[in-house]
């Protein structure tokens, strides 16, 4: 059986768990989305700043190149005036020395003769400048500046350096053979610009040019060594905005911005789990509050459930006590709700039941007493009439001796019968009572009735319910002996058997049919004919009285053989004179 309390608890906690889960998941998802959007916007801003910084930087380098290209000494050198080569070298050197991000500045004249920012440098003899990409791109751009992707500069003897090369043509007197100005930028400024921005702990920024060539990548060497791959193809597909990329199972967010001055794509790479860097905090927060809510509801549920179930349990315990027969218990009523009403009604009901029971007990007692009285006196009028009738007849026939004897026997009989109050009499009195009766009857039946009364010595002082032998004897006479031809006899014996007092009434009458015998003491039986009923009334009265008084186990038993007679045993407990209380109270107990 599942108690209401646990059922309520289960229901409450299930419901709350579900609610907390749904609410948690929904609001967590919303919060996560908001967080992701914020992070995306923020990354977009950061990348925008980097792009702006790079544009400014490249614009600045173009301004510098503009200064050089427009310089009159430079144009003079390009046009073949070698006398100012020193001045051009000094100009380049002065610019280079103010900026540590410029690793090389060269002016190539129309014949590709170089002027370096540093006099000690010389052209790598193995390299033909006109065959280099930066040279050809500059010529193709017709005066505009071009910026290469990351490349190894090998134009200087004994120097190989990764640089970005900005190149442009310088107008000269000889058309079709312009001079070329070259600035190599190391990655210091770009690195600074990029490193100023942090995209989480592992996020980074890389730059590709519009041909997909890598300009800058924090792990450039790893990519060049084929130890790492970068999703350049995916980045080249979009102009700007962000895409989600699966980086070997780790979701990553690529945010792309386009540099105006160079056409480069500046790409911010975020690890999505870092982008939501406070996602774990968020998760923890939600988990914690979910738990707190859950615990609180469980606590409240326990309280409410016990509020309801405790009085119910008290009620049920009280009912169990009543079930066990204890009608005295009452519920302590301290609840001012439906349960309180129930307890009140329950107590009221118990009170009523107790009243009813007391009344019932009284009624039963009264009924019993009146029944006993009635049974006890049932015999009297009928017999008295017959006896008096007999006396009248005897007196009429002047049989005075018999009249005297009969009358004195009747007097004894009546004396013993009318003694009021006590229901228990001595065995002696009871025997005397039946002897008087037998005397009267034997006179009436003119000696055709013989009788014998035997009593074991010492039995006289025990006690017996009064008027129990007489109805049995009467029954034996009227139904056993009177039906029989010739004279009959009745024997009465009184003896002790263990802790029982036994009377035995034996007649040699016609006996009782086997079919009728079991019905004699059957209280519920009403089916047999009037004669049988009459016959059984007296006998049953005696049995009933004994049972009422002493309880089951005592009473009558019959033994009969048709044609030979009947033996009736009357069993009562053995009660010495002066002792009757115990037997009496046990009777009462039985009545319950």
């Amino acid at each position: 059986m599942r108690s209401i309390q646990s059922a309520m608890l289960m229901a409450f906690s299930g419901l709350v768990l579900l609610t907390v889960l749904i609410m948690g998941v929904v609001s967590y998802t919303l919060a996560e989305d908001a967080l992701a959007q914020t992070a995306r916007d923020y990354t977009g801003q950061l990348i925008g700043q980097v792009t702006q910084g790079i544009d400014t930087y490249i614009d600045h380098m173009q301004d510098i190149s503009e200064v050089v290209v427009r310089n009159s000494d430079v144009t003079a050198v390009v046009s073949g005036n070698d006398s100012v080569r020193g001045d051009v070298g000094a100009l380049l050197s002065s610019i280079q020395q103010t900026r540590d991000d410029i690793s090389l500045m060269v002016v190539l004249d129309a014949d590709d003769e170089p002027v370096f920012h540093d006099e000690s440098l010389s052209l790598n003899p193995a390299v033909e400048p006109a065959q280099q990409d930066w040279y050809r791109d500059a010529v193709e751009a017709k005066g505009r500046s071009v910026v290469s992707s990351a490349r190894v500069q090998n134009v200087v003897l004994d120097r190989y350096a990764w640089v970005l090369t900005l190149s442009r043509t310088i107008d000269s007197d000889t058309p079709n053979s312009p001079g070329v100005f070259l600035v190599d930028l190391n990655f210091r400024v770009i690195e600074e610009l990029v490193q100023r921005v942090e995209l989480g702990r592992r996020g980074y920024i890389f730059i590709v040019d519009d041909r997909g060539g890598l300009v800058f990548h924090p792990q450039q060497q790893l990519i060049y060594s084929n130890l790492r791959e970068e999703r350049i193809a995916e980045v080249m597909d979009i102009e700007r905005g962000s895409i989600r990329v699966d980086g070997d199972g780790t979701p990553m967010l690529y945010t792309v911005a386009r540099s105006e001055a160079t056409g480069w794509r500046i790409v911010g790479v975020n690890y999505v789990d870092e982008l939501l860097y406070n996602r774990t905090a968020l998760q923890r927060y939600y988990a914690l509050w979910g738990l707190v809510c859950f615990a609180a509801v469980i606590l409240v549920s326990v309280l409410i459930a016990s509020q309801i179930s405790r009085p119910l349990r008290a009620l049920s315990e009280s009912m169990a006590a009543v079930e066990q027969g204890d009608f005295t218990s009452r519920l302590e009523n301290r609840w001012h709700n439906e349960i309180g009403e129930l307890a009140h009604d329950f107590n009221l009901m118990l009170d009523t039941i107790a009243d009813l029971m007391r009344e019932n007990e009284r009624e039963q007692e009264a009924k019993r007493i009146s029944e006993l009285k009635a049974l006890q006196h049932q015999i009297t009028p009928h017999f008295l009439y017959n006896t008096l009738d007999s006396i009248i007849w005897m007196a009429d026939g002047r049989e005075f001796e018999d009249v005297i004897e009969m009358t004195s026997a009747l007097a004894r009989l009546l004396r013993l019968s009318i003694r009021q109050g006590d229901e228990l009499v001595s065995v002696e009195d009871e025997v005397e009572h039946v002897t008087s009766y037998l005397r009267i009857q034997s006179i009436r039946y003119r000696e055709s009735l013989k009788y014998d009364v035997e009593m074991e010595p010492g039995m006289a002082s025990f006690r017996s319910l009064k008027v129990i032998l007489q109805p049995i004897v009467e029954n034996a006479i009227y139904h056993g002996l009177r039906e029989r031809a010739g004279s009959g006899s009745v024997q009465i014996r009184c003896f002790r058997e263990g802790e029982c007092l036994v009377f035995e009434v034996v007649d040699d009458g016609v006996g009782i049919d086997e079919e009728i015998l079991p019905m004699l003491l059957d209280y519920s039986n009403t089916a047999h004919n009037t004669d049988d009923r009459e016959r059984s009334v007296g006998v049953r009265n005696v049995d009933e009285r004994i049972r009422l008084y002493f309880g089951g186990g005592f009473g009558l038993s019959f033994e009969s053989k048709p044609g030979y007679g009947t033996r009736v045993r009357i069993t009562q407990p053995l009660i010495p004179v002066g002792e009757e209380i115990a037997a009496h109270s046990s009777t009462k107990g039985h009545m319950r």
Partner: protein
Amino acid sequence: MTRTIKHLSPVVGLLLLVAAVVTGVFAVQFSGEREYEIVVVLKSTNPEMEFWEIVGAGIETAAREYDMSPEIVGPWLEKDIDDQIRIFNDVIEQRPDGVILAASDYEALSPLADEARDRGIELVTIDSGLRSDAASSFIATDNLRAGRKAGQRIGELVGESGNIALISHIREVATAIDREEGVREGFEAVSPEGTILGTYYTDNEIEIAYGHAMYLLENEPDLSGLVATNELTTIGVARAIVDAGMSDSVHFVGFDHSKEEITLLEQSVIDALVVQKPFNMGYLGITTLRSALAGETVPEFVDTGSVIVDRDNLYTAENQRLLFPFTDRQ
């Protein structure tokens, strides 16, 4: 009261379960990984040795990426085998979690490697292997294949019946043994009529290489090709060719790619270089050791590969990236 507890127990159980799960999740999140103590024993710590500098760059890149701080040790010169044995011995005494070793000698370091393994030190070898099988992984150029490339190229350059000589760095080191073998195989396949006049050892010193080469150039008129098996040997031989003024008459294939070698390649003194990937060796050394320490299965041998570079393909995008480590840009 007992009844109440009995009825509450499933709910309480549920609560406890939820609490336990949450605590567990948090605990896992908070428990950080232990930092491993790692020592790298190289053949040379001389910064002039560009090959080992690039290996070091690879190691540092990986270390930065995985938040590790390996200690890099080694003798000053590659030929100091005894020095490396002593250093490796000290490292073992120090009982680090893992060691990356570039062995200067195929035989001599093997007993120590066994001891390191017996002491529970995780060992990964790079560049040069050991007779011992103590290392859980060996990360190197497949030197037999690299040698074959050099042999084939010199064969193609000198023709079917050319005579060449082999200038090798150190007699007992695994890289030299394999490369010599490879050169022989490659050369014989391309030049069945050709002869290898001899193999000369240089103790990994430029001067000795220079001496051998100069002697050969002056005294072997039939010599039409030379092969050198590592960086310093290549430089020594190339200098001898320059000094003998024989860059046009003698073909030369070398190994590795220091700045000087590349200049010599641009100047046609060297016809081709077999280029290894030292950065990858260093980088993969760290990542492989890290995996091995974490209990993952690691490959027994990782070939980092080699490429043959000549004047024609020197400045292709791929070779630029390989020859000029980006880390050296400043």
